[in-house]
């Protein structure tokens, strides 16, 4: 009989971190990179954040959020995965966030700020699968991450009607087929208990 397992590490973040990366060719450079966070639990409370870089945004990193303190905290995680999103001098544009689900095969996030409207769309969704990054891993170091990944065979990123060029391409996680663009739902980030006193608050 299987037993239940309580993870010994401390929960720091619960939410979602959906990734949208478009390229012109397999294993090419990203023409557009978006890291979308919907956070239910964090040391800085709940909220949303979009870190984006694309030609349709003048090639600059843009950050949109409804919780500035959350953005600065998330940058400690972005530093490990996408360092170009971790510059604490990058200004934060206040925005509102809406999830749209029109079909079972499509998923959309809409980000509305005073001067622009952004659409992130993941389409032709594949079968969801669970991953766990154990502590001391090559991706996020000492953090442990549980996540439900849903690969998208196609994706699009638009800013004020302009569409970013490039496509989603097949990718792999630990030998499992996924995509450069995927949903990451039901995500939990944990940090070792023994380091609580110096943890990333």
């Amino acid at each position: 009989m299987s037993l239940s397992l309580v993870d010994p590490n401390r929960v720091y973040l619960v939410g979602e971190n959906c990734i949208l990366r478009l390229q012109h060719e397999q294993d090419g450079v990203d023409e557009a990179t978006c890291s979308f966070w919907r956070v239910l639990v964090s040391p800085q409370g709940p909220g949303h954040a979009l870190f984006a870089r694309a030609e349709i945004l003048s090639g600059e990193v843009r950050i949109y959020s409804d919780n500035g303190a959350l953005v600065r905290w998330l940058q400690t995680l972005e530093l490990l995965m996408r360092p170009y999103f971790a510059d604490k001098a990058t200004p934060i544009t206040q925005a509102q966030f809406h999830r749209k689900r029109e079909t079972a095969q499509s998923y959309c996030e809409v980000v509305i700020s005073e001067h622009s409207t952004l659409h992130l769309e993941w389409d032709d969704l594949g079968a969801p699968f669970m991953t766990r990054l154990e502590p001391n891993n090559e991706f996020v170091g000492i953090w442990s991450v549980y996540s439900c990944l849903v690969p998208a065979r196609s994706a699009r990123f638009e800013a004020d009607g302009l569409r970013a060029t490039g496509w989603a391409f097949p990718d792999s996680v630990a030998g499992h087929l996924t995509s450069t663009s995927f949903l990451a739902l039901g995500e939990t980030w944990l940090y070792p208990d023994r380091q609580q006193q110096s943890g990333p608050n």
Partner: protein
Amino acid sequence: MAKSVINPNKVHFTGQNPFLRLKQVSEGPDTTTCAFWRAHLSPVGPGHALFVRSDVTDGEVVLLSDNDDLARWLQQIEAILRPPFGDKNLLVRKASFSNSGDARNIYGEHIESAGGTLELTWGDLYGSFLISLEPGNELVGDWGVSSCMIPARWATLSVNGRKANGKVFSEPMAGQNCTTSALAFAENWYRAK
């Protein structure tokens, strides 16, 4: 160097399943039992469902949802966890759902239906922990589940302003300090392929 581990099972559900149970005395029966579901992914799409039985529903099981198919699909899990909620003869009443608050302190779910308004509130939240259960366990059989639990020291249910009797009691979960009412976020249900 540690690795990324792929769970070999098939994911059927991703979402939330907070529960709210109130009792008059520690070892007594539930006077209120609520199972709230928010589905981001399921075989029958996204949506919400609330199963509730309480003194403020006059002991009747009430099932509210914005996705009938989801409510029926969830009943296979409720039949294991809380059998009275698994009765397929239950009427699914149409409702709309919204949430508010901050899981660091107070969190609420608000449900509107033709029958009125229900408010579920979890307060004095503390001590989150992540629990996972592999398929082939004594609690949910061939299902596996992982969930981030956030226990509440107090919780309330009100129906059209009428507040349910009873209170939250301590109830350990897998050796962790927990209570009879907790948020359950980032919850994933999976089974062997």
